[in-house]
């Protein structure tokens, strides 16, 4: 794999203001993403994991500029989108698409399948007439394994897995380079998850796609990802190749997450040392001082509660934010 950087995320922050009072003054902020830095290399699949509320979905959306980031840089092929006009960003969306979590909510209930898939082509002026659009939509439907005779049906007539295929076809329509898969399989039945994962993998290999694969299911993430990043309360905790992360996790939070995966081998499962997290996820509008994880970390020291650890490369291509490593 070439090490060409496709997306560079530098110190990305996404804060949502909390307003209150008669004059609607800003009284605080939900720091959904609070300074994360990483690169996404061309052709790789970067997994992004963490509990719900850790900011991974927000990160994915901010990277695509669906939200205007509060601070930081998201450079796509070397161009910082935050500095460009809204119209430039809109045109750039051709090259970066998204697959959504909820295949029920993300398809317009009043539109036929053919229109849902064909609209991006029209919006970006990629087809010259209805004939060509129809032809391309047919191709797309075949590519994702949808029966092309369903073109005039409405989304509610399909099952979850098929709806997700429609969503994938829509994302592929403009031949993008980069796709954010935002929990693209979490809402599906387990039996269907594997099929969709296989489809995504096959499409990646056939079309040379790059994925940011956001999920909370570590098993699936390991299977599809080249590298995996672990987020906690808006911060990146650990980032390395997926094999290394699962075989040799360094951050206590990663260890806790991994020990929550059941092992399908009862004797092994019984002797395993579990690392259980106590307490609830703190509020992202008022995170703990020092290391964000310090309030729930079993190993936390005074130092951890006072000073925030740097996100640093501990061994080659293995980044961790923890004082104890």
């Amino acid at each position, binding site marked *: 794999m070439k090490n060409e950087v496709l997306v560079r995320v530098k110190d990305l922050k996404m804060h949502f203001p909390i307003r209150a009072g008669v004059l609607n003054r800003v009284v605080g902020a939900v720091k959904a993403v609070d300074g994360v830095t990483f690169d996404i290399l061309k052709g790789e699949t970067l997994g992004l994991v963490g509990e719900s509320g850790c900011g991974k979905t927000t990160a994915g959306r901010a990277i695509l500029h669906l939200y205007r980031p509060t601070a930081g840089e998201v450079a796509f092929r070397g161009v910082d989108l935050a500095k460009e006009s809204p119209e430039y960003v809109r045109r750039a969306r051709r090259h970066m698409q998204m697959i959504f979590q909820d295949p029920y909510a993300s398809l317009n209930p009043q539109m036929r399948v053919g229109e849902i898939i064909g609209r991006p082509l029209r919006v970006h002026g990629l087809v010259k007439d209805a004939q060509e659009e129809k032809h391309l939509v047919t191709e797309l439907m075949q590519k994702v394994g949808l*029966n092309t005779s369903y073109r005039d049906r409405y989304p509610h007539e399909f099952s979850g897995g098929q709806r997700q*295929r429609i969503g994938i076809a829509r994302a592929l329509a*403009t031949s993008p380079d980069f796709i954010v898969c935002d929990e693209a399989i979490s809402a599906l039945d387990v039996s269907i998850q594997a099929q969709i994962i296989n489809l995504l993998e096959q499409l990646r290999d056939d079309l040379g796609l790059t994925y940011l694969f956001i999920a909370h299911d570590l098993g699936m993430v390991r299977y599809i990802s080249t590298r995996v990043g672990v987020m906690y309360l808006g911060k990146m905790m650990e980032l390395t190749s997926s094999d290394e992360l699962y075989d040799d996790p360094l951050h206590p939070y990663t260890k806790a997450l991994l020990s929550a995966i059941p092992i399908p081998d009862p004797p092994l499962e019984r002797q395993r040392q579990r690392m259980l997290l106590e307490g609830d996820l703190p509020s992202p509008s008022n995170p703990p001082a020092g290391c964000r994880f310090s309030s729930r970390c079993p190993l936390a020291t005074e130092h951890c509660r006072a000073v925030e650890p740097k996100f640093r490369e501990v061994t080659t291509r293995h980044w961790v934010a923890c004082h104890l490593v």
Partner: protein
Amino acid sequence: MTSLDQSPENGVAPTSEGPAAPPQQVVEHSKKSQLLSRLFRSKAATISLIILLLVLVAAVAAPWLAPNDPSAIKLIQRLKPPLYVNGAGTHWLGTDSLGRDVLSRIIYGARVSLTVGVSAVAISGTIGLLVGLLSGYFGGLVDDVFMRICDIQLSFPTIMLALTIMAVLGSGLDKLILVLGLTGWVQYGRIVRSQVISIKNDEFVLAARATGERQWQMLFQQILPNIWSPVIVIGSFTIATNIVAEASLSFLGVGVPPNVPSWGTMLADGRQYIGVADWLTIPAGIAISLTVLAINILGDWLRDYLDPRLKNIL
């Protein structure tokens, strides 16, 4: 619903698994024939539809249906009782204080009622839809100003507002349509706004943005098709409200000019002769009540057909 699965996901039931399954499920390929067959299952709705069709025919074909010129004044013939009273004479529903044929005026009155009802809705619907869409979608200053207008409108009975404006402008069919249209859009806008707000954060709108759609495309091509149901339902109720408003203002003498055959002006005239000639009021009163009742019943039915959840807001 048929199962379309041919892929290996066959086991998954395509129905009732998601909260997003829209109630518009029924609205499908065979939309129109289904709409009518469903309507005919309700006796009240069927009768209402027939009444409305009769009113519509009266309005359109008034010149051919009316036995006399509705404005022809014959003072010799004044206050002749209708046929059903003494079985004699040539005027089915009698004549008014100027000798004009009541039946002809009732038939022509349908024209005025429907013209005002429908044209004013067209005006208020267009303005309300646009303002509601923009205000709900973009928020900000437009929305703030619009919400303040709503506050004022709510505290100022529409009939009072229309009455004062008509008082200054003077009566006239065109002015009346304009005034009812321009005073009625606020309620329209409020409901459209609340609908837009309730779906603008739905994921399919975000998805449209992610594919690179422009703001106006998301607003008019993604959101708008999803709020047609309430728009149509309020529209039908507003036609009824406008018909009553036209008659009320004409009754008070500031609607259409007195010589124009409107059910409202007929009632106002008839009120002068209430102890003498009840045929001046009863036919006009029945005509307007039946028309409005029919529209309201059809509106109720349409609401339940298109989207029963609207019951809570309309």
